[in-house]
């Protein structure tokens, strides 16, 4: 028995050494927020962030692996070390920045927008749906409108279609394809709102080395224009680029 334990330790030690050479970076994402990240027909993570993440890993010479997780537990699982980065359309906010670190943004501060069935909805006093625990939900709660919270972004849009909510408030990038595909049923209403400091990659505060690597990779993509190409590819011509 004792011998067995010794061999396992030896194995663990060698594994530890091997690790120092080729580390696998686990990328945590939600997989339910197109076009940022979603599961394609094969059931794999796909979308803007998949392409971006893979490119960043190549540039930083890292081996990466994708993990999907529930939005609710995405930060606790990161700080507890179940994966090493969050790359899930997460806006950089002061509150989040206190707990985790962000790379520089890879999407410029983006607009959040209201979408409704008719153009005459009063977004300041109506019933507005938003995904629970997002910055949009927080914004609506403060705006004085009646906030209706759903667990998934899918349900927030459905609630406007079935009349439960007057409008949905979410990232504009998420809403644009939905409005385009709706065949005129859904329209943008009111002014867009700028929330957060753009979308960045989240990392543990103690992982400064890894953050620097990704920061450099993002910078290099910004410099040679590949990031802009990628943004246009996934979000269309009209969005802000760097």
């Amino acid at each position, binding site marked *: 028995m004792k011998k067995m334990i010794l061999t396992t*330790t030896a194995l*663990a*030690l060698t*594994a*530890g050494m*091997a*690790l*120092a050479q*080729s*580390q*696998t970076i*686990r990328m945590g994402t939600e*997989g*339910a927020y*197109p*076009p940022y990240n*979603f*599961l*394609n*027909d*094969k*059931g*794999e993570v*796909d*979308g803007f962030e998949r392409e971006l993440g893979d490119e960043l890993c190549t540039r930083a010479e890292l*081996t990466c*692996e994708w*993990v*999907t*997780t*529930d939005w609710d*537990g995405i930060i*606790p*699982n990161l*700080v*507890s*070390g*179940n994966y*090493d980065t969050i790359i899930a359309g997460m806006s950089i906010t002061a509150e989040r920045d206190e*707990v*985790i670190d962000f790379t520089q943004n890879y999407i410029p501060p983006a607009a959040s927008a209201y979408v409704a069935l008719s153009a005459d909805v009063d977004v300041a006093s109506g019933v507005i749906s938003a995904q629970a625990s997002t910055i949009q939900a927080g914004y609506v709660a403060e705006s004085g409108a009646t906030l209706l919270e759903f667990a*998934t972004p*899918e349900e927030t849009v*459905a609630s406007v279609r079935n009349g439960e909510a007057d409008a949905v408030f979410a990232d504009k990038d998420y809403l644009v*394809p*939905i409005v385009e*595909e709706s065949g005129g049923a859904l329209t943008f209403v009111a002014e867009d709102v700028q929330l957060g400091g753009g979308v960045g990659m989240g990392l*543990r*505060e*103690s992982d400064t080395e890894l953050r620097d690597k990704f920061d450099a990779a993002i910078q290099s993509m910004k410099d040679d224009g590949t990031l802009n190409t990628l943004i246009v590819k996934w979000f269309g011509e009209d969005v802000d680029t760097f």
Partner: protein
Amino acid sequence: MFSFCTDPATLSDFAWMACYLTTGKHMSFYYAFGTVLVLLAITAPTALAFGFAGASAARSRFLPLSLFGKGYIAIVRGVPDIAFFLFFVIALDQGLEYLKHQWVCPDWDQPVRQGNDFIVCQAAKVPLGNSAQWVHKTYSFFVAVFTFAIVFGAFAANVLFGAMRAVPRAQLETAEAYGMTQRQTFWRIVVPQMWVYALPGLSNLWMVLIKSTPLLFLLGVEDIVYWARELGGSKTPRFTDYPHGDWRMWYFLVLLVFYLAFTRVSEVVLDRVMARLTLGQATTGGEAQRRAEA
């Protein structure tokens, strides 16, 4: 899957459906049914073992042990399972890693908690950071089994505790008269007889266990409800070859049928087990069986 699936937009309804239902994503959905069944198959005996240990501890004459058993039953039964799942898994994972950290990296000089971060040495990661994806999946599967077993073990302990005390006093007195020791009485008289008293409670528990599998996603296992939600949500043509509206209703209908069928099968099997267990027992049911045979 099929060779004609290359351009789904041009297909007829039937062929489209055939292609749609065999995408990789659907395969994961079907696979998840297997995961749920395997999980149930492993969790049930594990929870029963936890329950047996808990009930035995609660019965113990040694006060700390009995307090521990009773405390386990009372506390875990008192907490809604969702609330338990939401923080216990992370705690368990950190606990495991901390223990392994103490073991494999004794000369680590940095604190394990740095601000919000929980950091152990790379070699102490469970599973190791560079393990293959399937190792991670298997690990979270077994963490889920363990967590379910703890929760349902507490309920099973409560049932078994009652069942052990329901064994007729006369049976125990007879055993004592035969000169059996405490231990012998427990293993030869109480344990074989308690099952018939425990089975109604345990089978109800099994039914509850089946129905709590939608909570698996909280534990990091992609279960059937997760996939049904994911697949059923409306899809725009930009992100899939198979655009469709909100089909969650249909997927949930499939799940409903699955759960109802599974419940029905369980009921039939458990009824048979009950009939088998009642055989020759000192209960009204056993008496009725004896009479029917005579």
